């Protein structure tokens, strides 16, 4: 069974440019998460989807970040415009529906460098 797929794996952009990350979760997983991980830190949740609905986006900087999960399957996270402080690894994860506490399956992440 394929795991969580993310692309691109690496992205280098100049500040003020836009950037987009794509995630395809494990087939059948209703819940999709986007995290940001800064160097030496743990992942920090940006947004959580249940099917196509964003149920927790309290940590998403909405002035420059946006996300969508059309049809409740794959998802895109966008930053426009990017700032130097956005340099980090962006992780996508998914989990199955059911009881709270289901393990989350993470993709390899996209390493973003903003110059």
């Amino acid at each position: 069974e394929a795991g969580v797929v993310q692309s691109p794996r690496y992205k280098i952009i100049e500040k003020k440019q836009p950037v987009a990350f794509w995630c395809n979760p494990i087939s059948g997983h209703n819940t999709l998460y986007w995290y940001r991980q800064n160097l030496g830190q743990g992942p920090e949740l940006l947004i959580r989807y249940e099917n196509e609905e964003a149920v927790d986006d309290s940590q998403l900087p909405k002035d420059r970040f946006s996300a969508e999960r059309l049809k409740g399957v794959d998802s895109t996270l966008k930053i426009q415009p990017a700032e130097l402080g956005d340099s980090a690894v962006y992780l996508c994860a998914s989990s199955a529906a059911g009881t709270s506490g289901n393990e989350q399956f993470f993709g390899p992440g996209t390493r973003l460098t903003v110059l």
Partner: protein
Amino acid sequence: SQKIEQNSEALNIQEGKTATLTCNYTNYSPAYLQWYRQDPGRGPVFLLLIRENEKEKRKERLKVTFDTTLKQSLFHITASQPADSATYLCALAGGYNKLIFGAGTRLAVHP
């Protein structure tokens, strides 16, 4: 404010010994706690979950304890191997299907 603390310094141990990693938290009352392993350049991988009404959980060479009075979880790897070298992340339930991660502890197992 809410806080999760894991050993910030790397833990270095000899092969065959037991590694013990600590996760302390304040101002939380998590319903469960999870431990993940993360290798360089990869996403975290789930290892174990322990719920608030459980004291201990085991899986092969791994053991997790959860003390809600001390607000602490201990993660043990027995008979450690160089292949166990990685960063280990503790994550608390911050709500339904919401995890709050610690910064992780880097473990290095030397032959």
